[in-house]
């Protein structure tokens, strides 16, 4: 420890608190939640290429949008694979690590935040309006055969996205424990629009 004994160590704010203070000048609690979850994704789950997407309210309603901001980033490993997709990959001998990392969207929420189907739906609607560029770098070098398989896979995936047979639009719902005495744990749930059959865990 450096000799800064003048200030009591117990009152030293955490790195996260400092981050929230420096990044968010407004003191808006929603913004603080967002930063905290972004921080968690980056530091604990090692996500990269993080982005914040501010959602403007639709002009028809004067209220603030139900979900003002979405987070997106690229996880180091696949978070979700649809069971049928998994079967296809198994048949073709493709491992999850062979695939290009994918950008995933996250809805930041805090425990006890008011929530409803309308808010959930608005988050999905907002996400479909966001345009982003899929970064195609950082693919590991693979042999010719694998490249061929992967091309087939991506082609099939395009089809599956259109027909929704490998699941539909998906996002992560992140909820942070911010209650009195909460430990700042963040839990993540995969939310997909429509009826998507469960994975064979």
């Amino acid at each position, binding site marked *: 420890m450096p000799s800064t004994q003048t200030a009591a160590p117990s009152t030293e704010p955490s790195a996260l608190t400092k981050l929230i203070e420096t990044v968010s000048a407004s003191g808006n609690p929603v913004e603080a939640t967002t930063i905290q979850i972004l921080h968690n994704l980056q530091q604990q*789950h090692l996500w990269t290429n993080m982005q914040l997407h501010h959602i403007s309210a639709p002009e028809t309603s004067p209220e603030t949008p139900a979900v003002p901001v979405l987070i997106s980033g690229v996880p180091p490993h696949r*978070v*979700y694979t649809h069971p049928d997709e998994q079967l296809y990959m198994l048949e073709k001998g493709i491992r999850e690590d062979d695939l290009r990392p994918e950008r995933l969207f996250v809805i930041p*929420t805090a*425990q*006890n*935040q*008011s*929530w*409803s*189907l*309308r808010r*959930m*739906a608005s988050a*999905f609607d907002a996400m479909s309006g966001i345009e982003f560029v899929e970064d195609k770098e950082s693919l590991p070098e693979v042999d010719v055969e694998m490249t061929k398989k992967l091309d087939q896979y991506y082609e099939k995936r395009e089809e599956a996205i259109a027909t929704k047979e490998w699941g539909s639009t998906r996002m*992560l*719902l992140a*909820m942070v424990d911010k209650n009195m005495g909460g430990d700042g744990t963040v*839990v*993540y*749930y*995969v*939310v*997909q*629009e*429509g*009826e*998507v*059959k*469960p*994975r*064979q*865990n």
Partner: protein
Amino acid sequence: MDFQPTLPIPISFISGRYLLFSIDAVTYLRREHNTCGVLIGTLPQIPQQNVFLGLPLELMPEEARLLVDKGVACIVDEAKAQKDGMQSLLEEDRRQYLRELESQGLQAARIVAGRKEQQKEDYFKKSLEKKGKKKPNVQSKETSNGDPTASPTGPSTANDEPASLGDFFAGDSSSSRGTSNSTPNPQHTYGVTPTTSYPPLPHPSASSDAILSRPDVPLSYPLFAHMHTRGYFLSPGLRFGCQYVAYPGDPLRFHSHFLVVSAEWDQDINLMDIIIGGRLGTGVKKGFLLGGPQKEKPEDGSEIERTESVRTFSIEWAGM
């Protein structure tokens, strides 16, 4: 197998429950309309046992409503229908009905007796082949014991099931055993108790005043109807603490896919409930399905537009 009941099928409304008493209607609805209901009939002597339940079948109000809206079924005020029906029943009809039941009972007894006879012959033949000579007294003892299928030297396996079924009925009255053992044409007839009262009473028609209006349904009905139109079989969700359990096909063939919970569009949802449902669902290899109609319930109680406006979300634990 492919029995077509007369439509609309009468659903008996008795003290607040929607019940079906006809096995033909039950199988038809399950086969053609993805409606399973819950069997609630137990044995009068052992009302506590709930391992093997039989008719009647209780339908959820949602199921009854859906069938009525589809025009497949109608709700009958059973108490009223019985009273009116019995009053209008003629003495001649009554006698003929009783005669019919009697002939059915006789027929059943004849079949059982014939089967017993067959069994006995098979058994005799077999044991003769097997042991050679010193059989006669042993055989007669075992057959009079009543259940040759229980002995390891019983009839061939192909015959097994119907034979034991016959024995089961034969066991109902010990007096019939003696006669049926001795003759294939017994004097004794079985008492047949039909589960439905529609052969003697007229089939309720849509114009009858015992027909009730469509059932009242909870706010979750649009989601129920939405899932049903997608081909899911829905059963009550008490077991998993949700509103419905959704199966992708007949529950006898498939594991369920979703724990279904409905909410109104602007209803406040505790985020913790989503976590609880998502985690429980993932724990039992299912998804947690949250959904609801975007429209509010209209004054006239019609649910068609609401059902069309349903949006659903499938939730699973992300594992991180």
